[in-house]
């Protein structure tokens, strides 16, 4: 293959990726923004490596792999929910940047920072979960999502209390 053909192929793939990303962005703008609650207690159990080690010791290899994959699927759902809620919080707190009350602005900034960290952690968690789903024998250090998510809840609650007179308080049911 000549270099011209290779470049044409690479650019075609690049352009297809660009089109997919643009369409994805257009689609995500249309999707509804409804936050969903997360049961942190259940999530904690799912992320418990001791629990996983116990199952690994007690079950046959195949049964453990099947269960691990199912656990990963459910964990994926929880992480998606956290990620989605962090996104809603990020957007809501972003809108408070122009609030007349400087305390609200300050609280919104720290909420944004936390929500941003959670989004990053969720991306890391997705990568780890994908690998663990493909290779169930692997066991990565679980992402520190749970404690950060609790901090986000507190931060959102503080922000909501500061803007209690506001007609559209930032998400409080996460």
């Amino acid at each position, binding site marked *: 293959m000549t*270099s*011209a*053909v*290779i*470049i*044409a192929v690479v*650019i*075609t793939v*690049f*352009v297809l*990726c*660009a*089109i997919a*990303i*643009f369409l*994805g*962005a*257009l689609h*995500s*703008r249309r999707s509804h*923004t*409804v*936050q*969903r*609650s997360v*049961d942190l207690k*259940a999530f904690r159990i*799912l992320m418990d490596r001791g629990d996983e080690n116990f199952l690994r010791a007690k079950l046959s290899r195949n049964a453990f792999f099947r*269960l691990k994959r*199912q*656990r990963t*699927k*459910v964990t994926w*759902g*929880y992480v998606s*929910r956290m*990620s*989605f809620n*962090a*996104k*809603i919080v*990020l*957007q*809501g707190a*972003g*809108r408070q*940047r122009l609030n007349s009350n400087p305390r609200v602005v300050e609280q919104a*900034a*720290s909420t*944004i*920072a936390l929500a*941003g960290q959670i*989004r*990053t952690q969720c*991306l890391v968690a997705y990568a780890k979960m994908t690998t663990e789903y493909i290779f169930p024998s692997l066991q990565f250090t679980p992402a520190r999502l749970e404690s950060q998510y609790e901090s986000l809840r507190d931060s959102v609650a503080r922000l909501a209390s500061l803007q209690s007179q506001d007609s*559209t308080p*930032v*998400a409080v*049911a996460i």
Partner: protein
Amino acid sequence: MAHNALISVFWVLSLVLNAGLVAVLIGTRSVKKFPFFGSYAAFTLLASALCYLARGQGPRYFYVYWVCEGISVLLGFGVVYEVFGRLLTPYPALRRLALTIFQWSIIVLVLMGGIVLFAQSAAERNQFAAAVMIIEEATRIIEVGLLMFLFLFSTAFGLHWRQCVFGMALGLGIFATIELIGITMQNYWGASVQGSFAVIRAIAFNISLMVWAGYLLVPEKVVTTAEALQHGQLEQWNQVLTEFIYQ
């Protein structure tokens, strides 16, 4: 002949739409808010008019077209920078991270553009035209890549796009992507696809103009948040455990 007639129709249409876009920008006082985009819209109008006047004049048209194209690509980068700034204004905490990734993306894209610049051989016979087309191909790769980065970053972090800023990025993305496809096709197949590409480019530019004007004119949606508790995943986990226990 059919190509020429179609191109003329789309050209005139783009002049009308572009003038409309400039009027919308002035009317909504968006020029002050988006100086790069305002300059880009005004310049593309001027460039289209100049090219229209110079059409059919051989070398004069060639130089007018490529000089205008060069300036509009530079202004396009300005628009990308403006979109980047506007997108991250409400999120100062994410700005540093975004800036770091943005800089790395620029390095990677410049490298990619550089590879294209050295490895690509245009089918165009005129050496100067071939060089210009390869440079344009490389710069369009950088432009499309930066827009891809903006959309990916905003999706990854769930950033909220303001209506008009989203429209700017989307319109520029559509046009730059089509331009990149066209220029690659031309570099590969030569002048045989020039006519078809000119029509597709004109259509893409008109679509971008409509996207820009549309997003500037449509009022911003008020986002409402509502609570919706869902227990689907817990139930799923319950079901898995039940199946396991009763195995």
